[in-house]
């Protein structure tokens, strides 16, 4: 039936040339094989994706059962807020520096520290804690054991978050102390 739609020369070639026939059948077989391979590859890809989705579903189902995260989130949030309330609050950088200077100076005055010196640097932002600034203070004065301990007690019992980075008590006849304190604050500019 096919031959009626084909040119005579083509049919003649097909009929007479066995190599042509064999070649065409080979090409047809190769094309079929490649098509089959293509289909098989696509199927395999879909199967892989299904496997991936299945794993994802198992993970999501596991997460879906973890209601405890709401409680954890609340508790952690509360703890974080508690910590944030421990930061000194100032309305500007200058005020943060000034209030730190005033506060530490008042501590020294209360203990009647002689030859006292307080040097406070301007606040610098902390890169790892956005919104938190650090005010560094160097405190110097004549050493008297009781007064230094009282100052340290006042510093550590205060609500503000601070850190004593350095404390040196030295001197042969007349001992002096040097203390580096870092006070952490937030600046809410209005």
């Amino acid at each position, binding site marked *: *039936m*096919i*031959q*009626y739609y084909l040119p005579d020369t083509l*049919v*003649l070639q097909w*009929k*007479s040339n*066995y190599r042509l*026939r*064999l070649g065409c059948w080979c090409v047809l077989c190769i094309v*079929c094989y490649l*098509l*089959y391979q293509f*289909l*098989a590859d*696509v*199927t395999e890809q*879909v*199967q892989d994706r*299904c496997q991936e*989705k*299945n794993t*994802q*579903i198992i993970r*999501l*189902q596991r*997460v*879906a059962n*973890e*209601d*405890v*995260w*709401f409680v*954890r*989130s609340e*508790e*952690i*949030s509360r*703890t*974080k807020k508690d*910590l944030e309330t421990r930061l000194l609050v100032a309305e500007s950088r200058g005020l943060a520096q000034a209030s730190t200077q005033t506060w530490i100076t008042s501590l020294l005055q209360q203990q009647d520290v002689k030859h006292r010196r307080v040097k406070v640097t301007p606040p610098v932002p*902390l890169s*790892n*804690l956005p919104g938190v600034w650090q005010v560094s203070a160097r405190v110097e004065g004549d050493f008297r054991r009781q007064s230094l*301990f009282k100052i*340290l*007690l006042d510093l*550590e019992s205060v609500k503000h*978050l*601070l*850190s*004593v*980075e*350095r*404390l*040196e*008590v030295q001197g042969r006849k007349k001992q002096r102390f040097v203390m580096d304190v*870092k006070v*952490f604050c937030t600046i809410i500019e209005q």
Partner: protein
Amino acid sequence: MKSFFFRQKFSHGIADEVQVESLAGMGRSRWIVGRSLCLYKVFFIPSGIQDKNETLSLQLQQWSPFSKTSQYVVWQGNNALVWIWDEGTRQELLQQFDASKAEVIPEDLFFPLPLENGVRVVQCLSGVVAQYWQDDVLLDSQWWMEYPTSDELRQFYRSNDLSLPAQLPECVSLPSIKTPWGVATSLHGSGGFQYEQYLLPFFCVLFLVFGYQAMTLIKWTQFEKQLVGRVTDLTKQVEPILTARQRTYEDKAMITEFTKLSPYPAQLHLWAVVVRKLRGLKATVKSWKFNNGTLELVIEGDKLDPGDCIRVFSQEKIFTDVSAVNDRNDGNLQLKMTVLKRAMQAPVGAE
């Protein structure tokens, strides 16, 4: 398969005589039906007729004198060049040879086409044949056992409305061509185009194989759609949980950073620990130097042994790398140690 690689040519020239010889190359064997066993006729089927083969088939039934007829039909435009022979006789001979799958082709098809129009007389396997060619169409052909007489030839010319030539054609012996000059077509949709019979099963197998693979693909694709839908639903369901988890991790990280702001124990606590230790050693602090986790002390006492001091301070968990230098000149001992950072307490509920 054997006949595929070992081709044979069966030349059936006379009724019960077949010559067998090998053919080069691969493919089907050939059964050459001698011209003496064939009848030849050209049928003109007008182009208006829808089913030319059916029409030709009816005409062949009327024309054939054989009880069981086989034919070889070559279409040239509206002309059907038809050879018929007695298939019953041939089948009887076939039993002697392994030639059931051989192509059956009349002898005329292996004579080369003439270079010019007209009549020629050609030597056959048995006898001679006169052929009348016009524009590469074999309009008439007649066989004789021997070279025809002039009357027989004249009769052939006249039957084709040809004027007699001055000299009658001589009988020529032509070399056989490799492939027949005309392609056979089947009158009933089978036999002529030999590979058609394999196409249906071939495509059936292909359909089954591809169908199976396609069904598998469709099944998996539908399954994937279901999974995607399930993932979407679950994602919506777990979104608040994931948000809470993410917020927890972020807050935890911030708390860790807050803890790092004041990493070392309070100075008062350090003083208390040191004084408690020195009381056991009966010594006092003469100089205190704490700087970023390193504590250097100068202590004063009687017969201070550096080994004892190191042992005493090393017992305390907040100190490490304790070392001592004894300055015998003034009875002081210089101690140096590292203060460990405060153990970070995990926030409640966080992993």
